């Protein structure tokens, strides 16, 4: 049966109560930013090898099973592979490096190398952002982002509103996936066999769900707006926090460790 929630974990929050879950959200966001910068600076396989060790460490400390992430990333990985194949085939390499060539398609060592690095870079970014969302609750993520971008409020930028929109957009993904599952189940009961047929037929059947999903999406957004209005939400101005965030020394230590690790990976 269609169990999309297993296969798409984007935006989900899984509370295992680990050290990473308890870290200050701001520090986690800064670390994510460090990773993003590092992913563009690092350009060789040795560097990414060093990064991989750190990612493995994070994975172990977070107590989120690797199998869960791999299973939940299968669509993403399949899509990435598809793109990388094109990257290799259309890479304009030096004539001497061609391993195989036909018409405008070719496979060159350079093409393979570039595609490999690109793939690692994207997987790195994906893993880091996925881990951030798996280990940070909606409230922490919103508070952390608001606090980090608070200085921009002086420039009259609506920081709180922008952060809220961003976080809602991400956290709505799992809700929609659940909704699609529910719809698919109800339609299966009426004789649309979602669990049978080939890939193309299945994809076409999913298309049938788009209209109801859109309608329910608008209804949900409407309800959310009403709920926020009735609770007198009026953006960030003058709003105080009930739960204050405090970075512990261990959080700073983690940030320092990640920074050092990334610099090593970049320089080797």
């Amino acid at each position, binding site marked *: 049966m269609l*169990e999309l929630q297993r296969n798409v974990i984007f935006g989900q929050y*899984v509370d295992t109560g680990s050290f990473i879950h308890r870290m200050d959200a701001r520090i986690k966001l800064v670390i994510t930013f460090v990773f993003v910068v590092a992913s563009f600076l690092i350009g060789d396989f040795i560097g990414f090898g060093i990064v991989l060790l750190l990612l493995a460490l994070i994975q172990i400390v977070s107590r*989120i099973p690797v199998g869960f992430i791999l299973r939940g990333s299968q669509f993403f990985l399949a899509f990435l592979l598809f793109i990388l194949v094109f990257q290799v085939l259309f890479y304009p390499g030096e004539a001497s490096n061609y391993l195989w060539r036909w018409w405008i398609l070719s496979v060159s060592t350079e093409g393979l190398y570039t595609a490999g690095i690109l793939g690692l870079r994207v997987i790195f970014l994906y893993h880091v952002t996925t881990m951030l969302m798996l280990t940070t609750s909606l409230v922490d993520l919103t508070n952390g982002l608001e606090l980090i971008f608070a200085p921009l409020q002086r420039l009259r930028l609506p920081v709180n509103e922008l952060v809220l929109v961003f976080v809602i957009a991400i956290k709505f993904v799992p809700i929609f996936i659940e909704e699609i599952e*529910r719809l698919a*189940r109800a*339609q299966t*009961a*009426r004789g649309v066999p979602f669990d049978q047929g080939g890939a193309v037929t299945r994809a076409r059947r999913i298309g049938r769900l788009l209209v109801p999903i859109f*309608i329910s999406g608008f209804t949900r957004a409407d309800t959310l707006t009403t709920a926020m209005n009735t609770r007198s939400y009026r953006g960030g101005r003058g709003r105080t926090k009930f739960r204050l965030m405090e970075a512990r020394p261990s959080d700073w230590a983690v940030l320092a460790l990640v920074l050092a690790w990334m610099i090593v990976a970049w320089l080797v």
Partner: protein
Amino acid sequence: MEDSAPPILELRHFGYTYLEGTPRASEAIRDASFEIRRGERVGIVGATQSGKSTIVDSFAHLLRVKPGQVFYEGRDIAEPGYDRARLRREVGIVFQRPDSQIIEDVVGADVAFGPTAAGLSAAETRERVEESLNTLGLPYPEYRLRYVHALSGGQRRRVAIAGVLAMRTPVLVLDEPMAGLDPRGRRELLELLFRLQDERDLTLIVCSASLTDASLLCDRFVVLDGGTVVMDGPVREVLREVDRLAKLDITLPEPVIGARELRKLFPDFPTDLLTEDELEAEIVKRIGAA
């Protein structure tokens, strides 16, 4: 002879865990066993989160059912090669939220969806659509071309029921059929279900957190609590154990609540009362005796 035939639906040590094998796994049903015989009218009752909807979904193989746990007409629905499409043509489910099961935009087309998918001829499909809509008090000529989204909640629920009725399934499962209906809508739906029971040899399964409607519709209750079957028996037998029921966060029928209060005066006051008339008769009897 009746007893030698296999039950139409049977759960044998049925268990289900959502997102099994992931950190978000949650167990919904644990070791549930009961059978439903053809023509029976069973109420599956329990508070929210007690596992009612999971059981409903398992009847039509809408979950990953493990082999050896769910049987339809004596056959394991999870065995390889089992015809699930046929199962879904025989077990009709009206879900809690009608909107999720309405497929087409227009009322007539939606009710026709099931029969068409089952391969019926256009003439027969039309006849069934007309009959189902009329049965549900949505006159065919008037409602055939109406847009589903423009209807009220109660009307949409009726369209959803009509869509399942048009399949003429031997088993009809209703998940919280009365939710969101006004008193008149409830009464009409109750009358309709009574009529359907009389007219067709229907096996009726009603899921609810309220015993009020279920006690009028069903002969038997299967009571769930926290994913396990805690009581199973004829309606009156279950109602007699009112103190156990009261602990389960289930809405009890008004006469039963009244009778429970009266137990403070008459410790042996019966609680297996289905209607206000029965309650009244019992009170009159007590007063007469006193």
